């Protein structure tokens, strides 16, 4: 009841925000644009549409965290700065109601945002190719919604730890950098940083699985690994191909597949990977498998929430 009144008030206000609709339309245009640009090449219509969604998820992997953080970073900090929190807590709401109500509202907004990207992509593809690969569309949609939810959770939770707009912006940007960008640019890539610290500073032997495991803590990677569970063979995002370097099997079979880091996966994964998908999977330690990505996403859904709420629950709201 109280969660609902907090959420409906927030949605009502947000629904009148031109910026929010601008963002949603932007995501819609992204979906339309990709669908139009998408070429079938020599593939079958179904594969063409499937690869469209593969490309869409690669873009969303980068853009969605930003969109979700922007949509949620002010959820609570904004109310604290403006004084709206005083009204929210002057009626029969507890802090938990405010926190969960805001979270619910921002999750719905993010869901609608993803819908804005998916609906046009699906309908344009359908009219262009007449194909609707339901498993891939709904599979990637479900994983993408979870990914969006992770960043809404992170955004709302960060928002709950600060009292001002500026701090909220700062922390959200930091989160985007630490959880997404840090895993993309090769020079500062987290696995390289960890490798340097581990081998140069600590003087240890290189351990690829350790670096991979550290890298895997990012929801950005977890998202792409989870997508492998729903993407058709040949479109999987390959990571951790160097796992055997410091691992136990020493079998080079799977490790020759791709040298590429995150983001370079996708359609080009090619024949070698698909010819022995099972073998690659069995070589990886459990904590580096695609399935384990679900655990990582679950971690990011729960832990920030608990920390964010605890901080908010104990804060002095002046």
């Amino acid at each position, binding site marked *: 009841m109280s969660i609902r009144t907090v959420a409906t008030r927030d949605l009502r206000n947000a629904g009148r925000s031109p910026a929010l609709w601008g963002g949603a339309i932007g995501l819609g245009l992204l979906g339309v644009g990709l669908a139009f640009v998408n070429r079938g090449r020599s593939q079958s219509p179904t594969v063409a549409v499937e690869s469209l969604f593969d490309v869409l998820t690669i873009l969303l992997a980068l853009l969605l965290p930003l969109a979700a953080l922007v949509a949620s970073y002010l959820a609570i900090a904004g109310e604290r700065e403006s004084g709206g929190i*005083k009204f929210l807590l*002057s009626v029969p709401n507890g802090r938990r109601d405010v926190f969960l109500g805001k979270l619910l509202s921002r999750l719905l907004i993010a869901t609608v945002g993803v819908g804005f990207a998916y609906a046009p992509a699906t309908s344009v593809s359908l009219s262009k190719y007449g194909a609707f690969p339901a498993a891939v569309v709904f599979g990637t949609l479900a994983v993408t919604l979870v990914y969006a939810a992770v960043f809404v959770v992170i955004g709302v939770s960060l928002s709950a730890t600060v009292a001002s707009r500026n701090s909220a912006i700062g922390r959200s940007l930091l989160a985007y950098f630490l959880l997404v960008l840090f895993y993309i640019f090769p020079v500062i890539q987290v696995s390289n940083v960890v490798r340097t610290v581990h081998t140069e500073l600590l003087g240890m032997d290189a351990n690829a699985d350790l670096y991979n495991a550290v890298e895997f803590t990012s929801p950005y990677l977890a998202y792409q690994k989870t997508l492998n569970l729903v993407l058709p063979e040949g479109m999987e995002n390959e990571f951790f191909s160097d796992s055997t370097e410091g691992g136990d099997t020493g079998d080079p079979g799977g490790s020759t597949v791709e040298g590429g880091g995150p983001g370079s996966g996708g359609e080009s994964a090619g024949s070698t990977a698909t010819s022995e998908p099972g073998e690659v999977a069995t070589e990886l330690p459990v904590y580096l498998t695609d399935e384990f990505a679900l655990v990582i996403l679950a971690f990011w859904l729960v832990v920030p929430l608990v920390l964010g709420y605890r901080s908010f629950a104990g804060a002095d709201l002046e």
Partner: protein
Amino acid sequence: MVSVQTDSLTKRFGDVVAVDDISLTVERGEIFGFLGPNGAGKSTTLNILLDFIRPTSGAAEVLGRDTQAESTAIRERIGVLPEGYGFEDRLTGREHVEWAVASKGVDDDPDAIIETVGLRGDEHRLAAGYSKGMQQRLAFGMALVGDPELLVLDEPSTGLDPNGMQSMRSTIRDRAENGTTVLFSSHILPEVEAICDRIGVMNEGELVAVDTIENLREEAGGHATIDLVCATPPDPADVKTVDGVADATVDGTTLTVRCTDPTVKVDVVRSVDRQVDVVDILSQNASLEELFNIYTGGGRDEAGTTGPAEEQ
């Protein structure tokens, strides 16, 4: 029955003691006012009662419930006009009232509330675009939703014009007559004087006096003050020799004389009139303002500057 009870309530922000060991009881149906200069700890005390901030030590109960453990249950029975509130950017005045009605789970008519606080005709405008006085009325209206047992009003007359103040006071009195307890804070003396049954004077986090206005006035020694506006600047030296005069100060052409005995005011006027032409006479008995100054040691004026007010 007790509406509000605090027990050695203390709140520190770092080294600053914002609320210092306050023990207070407010009975049901009372209109109780916290009076004090800015920064005296009035809002902090109310914010602790509302569970916006947490006490460093001590405890408080509102309507018999613990402020921290049972804040939601308390909020079901109170109406709040908080300090430092802000409206949603894109919701109208009426929508804010509707939201308060829905949140409290009552079936009040939003239009009746809007009528009560005099916002008829403006209810479909965005609340964030209201003037300060209109925002204050709207916030007051939201506090009235659900006919609460206790109204907590933090500086309620801020930004209101005289009409608005008058109308708010009469609403507060009406509610109090129907058994509502009212707890509010103010640095505006006439307001406190006009509506309070009892006041608590706060200064630098401490509750320095709690009593009815009559008793406080008596305690202050029954001083009387007389202001004489003269044609030319008067000399206070002569009048100070009059029996019963405690003090005399000059500000421009105005001579302010404080008498320990109200009956010597006539002697004061005679004495001054012999010296200069008296243009106007303003006489008042011991005012809360003086009490305020006595208890707060001059305190801070409304703008928050420190040091004693020189005109006094």
